[in-house]
C-alpha cells in the first residue's frame, strides 16, 4: 500500500463527467486517501441564473467569465486551507488557466481525467498543457496531439465502474415489471441510435433516457421521455433487462455503428451489474473485455442476429455476464483507475514526495491519533476512525480534516480532537 495522500477533487458543474468525479472520490477514499471535494454543482444555479437575465451578449460573456474566475478563486482558497498533494479534476472542472498557472507556480500537482471524446470536445487544446498529468480515454492519435502541445505526461485511463454500486440485485416483481424488457437501451438520443432502433420496434424494446427527438416510430418504446434517469434506476434497468443494448453514440446517422475507439461508461457499468450486454465493436474494447464476457456486434444485421440468438439462451447470457463482472472486479473498478493514475503521477511528477513508497498508509514520521492515548480513549478514537472510514494508521492531520468535514454538530470527542489540533497549531506558530 502506498502512502496516504491529500487529494482535492474538483468536480465539474454538471454532465457525465460529474458522475465519474463522484465515483473517483469514493474510490480514492477506499484506497485510504484523504479526499476533499470541491462541489462545483452547488454553484451551477447561480451560473444558470446569469443566462436568464436577458442582457447584452458581450456583457453576459464577461459576467460568465468573471463568475468562473470567482469559482476558481474559491478553489484556490480551498487549496490554501487543505494543502493537497494533488488536485484531481474531471473534464469541465472550473479551473481557469490562471488558476492552473498559479497552482503550478505553487508546486501543487494537478491531474485531469479527460473522460470525453477529444474530437467532440476540443477545448483540451487550450488547457491540456496546464495540467501536470493528463489522463484520457483514447489513444492514438490523441497521445501525439497532446505531446505536440507540450503535454508529456499522458496516461490512457479507460472508464470504469463502481462494483459496490453497479452490482447485481434481486428485484421485486413490481420493479421487474416497471424496468424489465427483452431488450433495453439507456442513454441519450443520438442520430445513429435513432436510425438503428427504428429496426427494433417489433420487439419488447424499451428506451430510457433524455435528449431524444420526437420520433413517431420510436414513441411506443420510449419510457418517460426527456426525463433523466437516476444512477439508482439505471442499475435496476440493467438488472431487469434480458439484453441491454449498448450502442455507442455518434453525431452522424451513418454509419449506425460508428466504430470509434473509446469505450463508454455503460459498458463497464453493465458488466459490473452482471447484466448481459450487446455492445458495438470499438477499437479499444478488445483489450478491456473479451468476447466471452460481452457480446459484440459489428453492424446492424449482426445486432439483430445477436438479439435473436441471446434472447432464447438465458444460460449463455448469465455465464457471460458473470465473467464480465469478474473482469470488472479484477481490473475495471474506479479503484483500479485511481491507483493507476496515482502510480503514474508518482512516477512522472514525483507525487507524494519522500513519503511515497511501499510503506503503510500512515505517512512516515507523522503521529498517529492513537499514539500515547489511554486505552478507554483509544477505543473511542478507534470507533470514530471506523465511522469516518479511516484506517488506524491515518495521520492525525488527516483525521482532523475528516472531522472538519463532518456535517451537523460535533461530538465531545470530535471537539476534543479539534481542540488538541488547535493547540498543536498554536504551538507550531509560537516556535
Amino acid at each position, binding site marked *: 500500500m502506498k502512502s496516504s495522500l491529500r487529494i482535492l477533487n474538483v468536480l465539474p458543474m454538471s454532465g457525465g463527467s460529474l458522475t465519474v468525479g463522484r465515483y473517483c472520490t469514493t474510490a480514492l477514499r477506499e484506497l485510504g486517501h484523504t479526499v476533499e471535494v470541491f462541489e462545483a454543482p452547488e454553484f451551477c444555479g447561480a451560473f444558470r441564473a446569469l443566462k436568464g437575465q436577458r442582457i447584452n451578449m458581450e456583457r453576459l460573456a464577461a459576467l460568465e467569465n468573471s463568475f468562473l474566475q470567482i469559482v476558481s478563486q474559491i478553489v484556490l482558497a480551498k487549496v490554501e486551507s487543505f494543502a493537497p498533494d494533488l488536485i484531481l479534476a474531471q473534464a469541465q472542472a472550473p479551473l481557469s488557466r490562471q488558476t492552473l498557472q498559479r497552482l503550478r507556480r505553487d508546486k501543487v500537482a494537478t491531474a485531469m481525467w479527460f473522460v470525453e471524446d477529444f474530437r467532440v470536445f476540443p477545448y483540451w487544446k487550450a488547457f491540456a498543457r496546464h495540467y501536470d498529468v493528463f489522463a484520457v480515454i483514447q489513444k492514438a492519435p490523441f497521445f501525439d496531439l497532446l505531446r505536440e502541445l507540450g503535454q508529456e505526461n499522458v496516461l490512457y485511463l479507460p472508464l470504469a465502474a463502481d462494483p459496490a454500486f453497479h452490482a447485481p440485485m434481486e428485484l421485486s416483481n413490481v420493479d421487474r415489471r416497471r424496468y424489465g424488457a427483452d431488450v433495453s437501451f439507456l442513454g441519450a438520443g443520438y442520430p445513429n441510435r435513432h436510425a438503428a432502433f427504428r429496426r427494433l420496434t417489433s420487439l419488447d424494446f424499451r428506451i430510457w433516457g433524455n435528449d431524444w427527438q420526437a420520433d413517431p416510430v420510436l414513441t411506443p418504446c420510449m419510457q418517460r421521455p426527456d426525463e433523466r434517469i437516476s444512477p439508482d434506476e439505471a442499475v435496476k434497468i440493467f438488472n431487469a433487462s434480458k439484453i441491454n443494448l449498448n450502442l455507442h453514440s455518434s453525431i452522424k446517422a451513418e454509419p449506425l455503428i460508428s466504430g470509434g475507439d473509446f469505450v463508454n461508461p455503460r459498458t463497464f457499468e453493465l458488466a459490473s451489474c452482471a447484466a448481459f450486454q450487446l455492445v458495438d465493436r470499438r477499437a479499444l474494447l478488445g483489450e478491456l473485455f473479451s468476447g466471452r464476457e460481452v457480446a459484440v456486434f459489428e453492424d446492424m444485421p449482426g445486432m439483430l442476429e445477436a438479439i435473436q440468438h441471446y434472447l432464447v439462451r438465458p444460460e449463455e447470457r448469465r455465464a457471460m455476464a458473470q465473467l464480465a463482472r469478474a473482469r470488472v472486479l479484477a481490473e475495471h473498478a474506479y479503484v483500479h483507475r485511481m491507483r493507476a493514475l496515482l502510480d503514474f503521477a508518482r512516477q512522472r511528477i514525483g507525487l507524494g514526495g519522500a513519503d511515497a513508497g511501499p510503506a503503510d498508509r500512515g505517512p512516515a514520521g507523522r503521529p498517529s491519533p492513537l499514539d*500515547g492515548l489511554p486505552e478507554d480513549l483509544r477505543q473511542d478514537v478507534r470507533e470514530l476512525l471506523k465511522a469516518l472510514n479511516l484506517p488506524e494508521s491515518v495521520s492525525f492531520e488527516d483525521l482532523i480534516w475528516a472531522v472538519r468535514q463532518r456535517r451537523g454538530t460535533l461530538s*465531545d470527542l470530535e471537539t*476534543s480532537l479539534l*481542540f488538541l489540533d*488547535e493547540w498543536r*497549531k498554536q504551538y507550531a506558530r509560537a516556535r
Partner: protein
Amino acid sequence: MNTYLVIQLARFGDIIQSKRLVRGLQARPRAVVHLAVDVSLVSLAELIYPGVHVHGLPVHGQRPEPERLLQGCRPVFRQWREASFERVFNLNHSGFNYILAGLFAPEQVFGYQWRHGQALRGAWPDMVFRLTRRRSVNPLNLMDYWGYFLQPALEPQAVNPAAVAKGNGIGVALAGRDARRSLPVPVLSQILAAALHATAGPAYLLGTEAERPAARQLQRALPPALQTRVRDLSGRTKWNDLMEVLGQLDLLLTPDTGIMHLAAHLGTPVTAFFLSSAWCFETGPYGAGHLVWQAGRACAPCLESQPCDQDTACLLPFTHKTVLAAMAGPGLAGRTSPPDPPAELCLLKSRVDDFGLKLHPQCGELPKSKEREAVRELLRGHCLGITPRDVATENGAAAWMYDETQWMLEQS
C-alpha cells in the same frame, strides 16, 4: 430555566470586560449562566461573577499533554452538549472558539460560529471587524461590543459603580502585556511622585512575579522621602488579595491592564495612561468618573505586532509639566483639568450614556473626533434601534460600516 453559555477565552481584562453581557444574562428571568474561561482565570471569574457556573479550559500557558487535554476537556464538552443551552455567546475570534461553536447548532450560537467545518462571524462581530480596520475612529468600548451580543443589552449604568475614592492611597499597576504600551519606570516614577505629593496615603505596587524587578526600580527611582510610603505587593497577591487592595484605593495609576478593569469593576477611580497600540475608546476603564491620558499622534493607535519606527515618540508628552501638575493638583491626583495641555496628548473623562461608555476630552484634542462621534451615533442607533439624532452625520460612517453583504444577504 433559561440556560446560557458565554465562551470568553481571552485574558484577565477580557473576563471583566464581558461583564455587561454576563450580568445582562444574569438579570434575565430564571437565568442560569455558564462561563468558559482559560483554566488559569477560573478563580478570578468566580470572584467577579458570583452565581455563574465557571468552566476552565486549557487555552493559554504551557502546552498540555495530548491525553491530559483530551481527558480534561471531554467531560466539559459532554456536559455542554447535554446542557441544552438556550443560547451560546462565543466571544473571541480564535481557533479554539470556532471549534467550541461546533458543539452546538449554528442557530444557537451568537458571535463566532462554525457551520459544517466553516468558521463564520455573526453580523455584529462582522460589522465591528470592519471598524477595527479603522481603529482611530473606533469609539466602541469592548465592554459594549460584547454587551450588545445580547439584545436588549444591560443598561450601561448597571455595569460598574461610578468611581469614588476609597481613602487608602494610590495603587500602581506596573505593566500591561506589551511593554511598549506601558510607561517606563523613569516616566512612571515622576508621575507617581507627583501623585504622592497630593495625598498622604501609601502607594501599592501591583503586578505579577514578573514585575518585581520593575517594582524595585520604581521604588528606588522615587525621592527617598516617598520611598517609605511604597508597599511592594508585586507577585504577592492572589485574586482576592488584589481585589481587596484595589477596592480600598483612592486612585489607581495604570496602563491598559486587567488590573485597571478590576479597579473599574470595583468603582475605584482610575487614571490610565494609553499610548502606542492602546486606544482608550476600545479598552478604556468602564464606568463614570475615570480619567485617561491618551497619546494622540497621527500614528495612534499603532499595531502591537509591528515595530515602531518613531522611537515610541508618543511617550514623550507624558513627562510634560502639565501632566505632572495635574497629577499633583488639589483634591487628588489628576482630578483637575490642566489649562495648558501638551501637544499630542489628551485627557479624557469617562461617563456612560444610553449606549455605553463615552470619553469626554477635558484638555487637549485627539484627531478625528468628529468621525469618531459619527460612528458612535451610527452604532448607538444600530444597537438601540432608535431614530437617528443626526442622520447626516451618521451617513459618512454608514457608507463604510454597512457594506453590500449586509444590505443584500440574510444576516445571522
